[in-house]
């Protein structure tokens, strides 16, 4: 039996199967371009001003159709967020009408929002949203930035683990808002749909939501769709992960502790094993053990 030959056969079969992988690998021309995010990387934190601008875009544009059910008005004043004061957050809340009840007469009623309320949805239920929007249901935006991603494939997904990149969600939102272009030749846009080069399948139900100058910025930031997209994507990332800043701060402390502690454990291990080598009597002073196969 010739093992060398069989090994060569197996190795070439495996190599053939791996080249099959390489051939089918998808091209990445519709990949959302990566943006520079203040909250990327191990020390990246949210930019307060950007979150405030993004909130303004959400409130004036997105919130007409998209709910943000899991976010509460009090979150606007939480540390690591847009940096509103409690009074400001309460003022924002009061501009929304919230359904409450039932009251003593058994009736549901409308009242101004309180800081403890969650953002009220623009439609009372999914059916109402569909009825108003030609059968389309806009997704809730609470965790949208974590619910969207892009498969970069090998080797990028390995590299991302080392460079700690996980901002594919905001990248996608930014790209989508800037992805309304003319459809390529031969692309049939379905009735009531729009072409968007970053939307899976190309046909999106949402009409182009933003145009230059639509939302007024008071801090001198350019009022462009590109900037709106970046700001609202950052805001939605915060809405999806409001504890991120706390996580990264604690993470740094935990890392320092673990590295120092593990270093000490290494030195202890070295000392203990070294002592046994220098003085083997440390090992031989033990009570005898029976070894069955000795």
């Amino acid at each position, binding site marked *: 039996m010739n093992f060398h030959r069989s090994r060569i056969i197996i190795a070439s079969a*495996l190599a053939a199967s791996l080249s099959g992988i390489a051939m*089918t690998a998808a091209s990445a021309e519709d990949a959302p371009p990566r943006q520079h995010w203040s909250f990327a990387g191990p020390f990246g934190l949210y930019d307060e001003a950007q979150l405030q601008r993004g909130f303004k875009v959400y409130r004036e544009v997105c919130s007409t159709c998209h709910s943000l059910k*899991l976010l509460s008005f009090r979150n606007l004043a939480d540390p690591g967020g847009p940096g509103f004061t409690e009074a400001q957050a309460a003022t924002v809340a009061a501009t929304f009408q919230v359904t409450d009840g039932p009251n003593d007469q058994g009736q549901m009623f409308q009242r101004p929002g309180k800081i403890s309320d969650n953002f009220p949805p623009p439609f009372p239920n999914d059916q109402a949203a569909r009825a108003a929007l030609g059968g389309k249901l806009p997704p809730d935006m609470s965790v949208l930035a974590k619910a969207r991603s892009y498969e970069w494939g090998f080797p990028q997904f390995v590299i991302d683990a080392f460079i700690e990149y996980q901002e594919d969600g905001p990248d996608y939102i930014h790209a989508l808002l800037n992805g309304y272009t003319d459809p390529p030749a031969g692309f049939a846009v379905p009735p009531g749909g729009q072409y968007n080069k970053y939307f*899976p399948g190309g046909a999106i139900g949402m009409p182009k939501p933003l145009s230059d100058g639509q939302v007024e910025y008071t801090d001198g930031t350019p009022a462009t769709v590109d900037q709106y997209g970046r700001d609202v994507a950052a805001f939605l990332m915060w809405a999806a992960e409001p*504890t991120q800043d706390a996580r990264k701060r*604690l993470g*740094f402390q935990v890392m320092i502790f673990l590295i120092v502690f593990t270093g000490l454990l290494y030195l202890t291990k*070295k000392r203990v094993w070294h002592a046994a080598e220098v003085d083997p009597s440390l*090992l031989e002073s033990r*009570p005898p053990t029976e070894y069955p196969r000795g």
Partner: protein
Amino acid sequence: MSGHSTYQPRSPFMQWMERRLPIASLVYSSFVAYPTPRNLNYWWTFGGILAFMLGVQIVTGVVLAMHYTPHVDFAFNSVETIMRDVNYGWLLRYLHANGASFFFVAVYAHIARGMYYGSYKEPREVLWILGVILFLLMIATGFMGYVLPWGQMSFWAATVITNLFSAIPVVGGSIVSWLWGGFAVGNPTLNRFYSLHYLLPFIIVGVVVLHIWALHMVGQNNPTGVEPKSDQDTVSFTPYATVKDSFFIGLFCIVLAWFVFYIPNYLGHSDNYIMANPGQTPTHIVPEWYYLPFYAILRAIPSKLIGVTALASSIIILAFLPWLDTSRVRSANYRPLYRQFLFIFFIAVIGLGYLGSQEPVGGYVIAARILTIYYFAYFLIILPLLGLFETTRPLPNSISESVLRSGVPVGASAPPPSGARR
């Protein structure tokens, strides 16, 4: 192979206790005086890491269960409440989710070490089979845990995996309804998965006790595969193994913390942040990464029944490894051919894992079939024949001989003695 218990209780209370429940001497003989081969390398620390991770998963899991609501209408939002409003809830959840992944990292390293050094061979067959049972329990527990957040991937993974049982002839359909508690994956399914996800870890603890008991009957294998013959071949568990395990647990925690604090969603799937919707199938259903090699085997075979049989066999076959490997030499260090086939096997498993994450089209299907054939051929053809034909390298007479010959004790990273430091 346990050493004679030399535990002598000093305090009157412990003497009183020793005559009634000798738990202190049991712990002493098992975790202090227990002789462990002196040449163990760092691959032997994964057992301790697994015990540590089981503890982490149970502690974080019990606290998460205090805040989680097992109901199809509330499960998704209750997980988000944990993330947003429970104190350090994000830490508990990310530790638990990434902890599950790292539990599997450790178990795969532990299994790979067992395969490389022939740790399943006589007299460690029962120890190995208990390990395979633990692996199966982990797979079941991990799968049910993934269903609990009730996202799109949770729901559809539950649908796909429970549907596998429908491939069983005659009774398949009834088994699936029985698993679901209805005619589709729904609230009863979520409730029973939650119940079992809470129960199985404690069964794992029980089997771990048996696993350690079996280990202490036969003693640890070691990189030479030659059994310890005298006290020169061993060191006591404490402090030598304890401090070495602790150091590596520390390193393991650093990697775990990297994921938990900086890329906590890297190992998950973004679709699981969309609430489960039975009316909308995701374009591409994938299980968690640690099941991908087995998922690739399932999809490589066009027939559902044969595919499911292959999936189950690919794990069950591990239990027969002690008898499929006919070689008398344990360690791959002395088996040059086995070593190469084993490394090809590891690469094939990683390749299957990659293929499991891709859509089953074109070249991917062919590649998955080739690797699946190698997976089974490795166990059923290569291992039985290799033991009969392979020329192995000479084994050392004892552990201490191999340690002294190489100059540096394999287990120790300290330089050779060149004058005492202090």
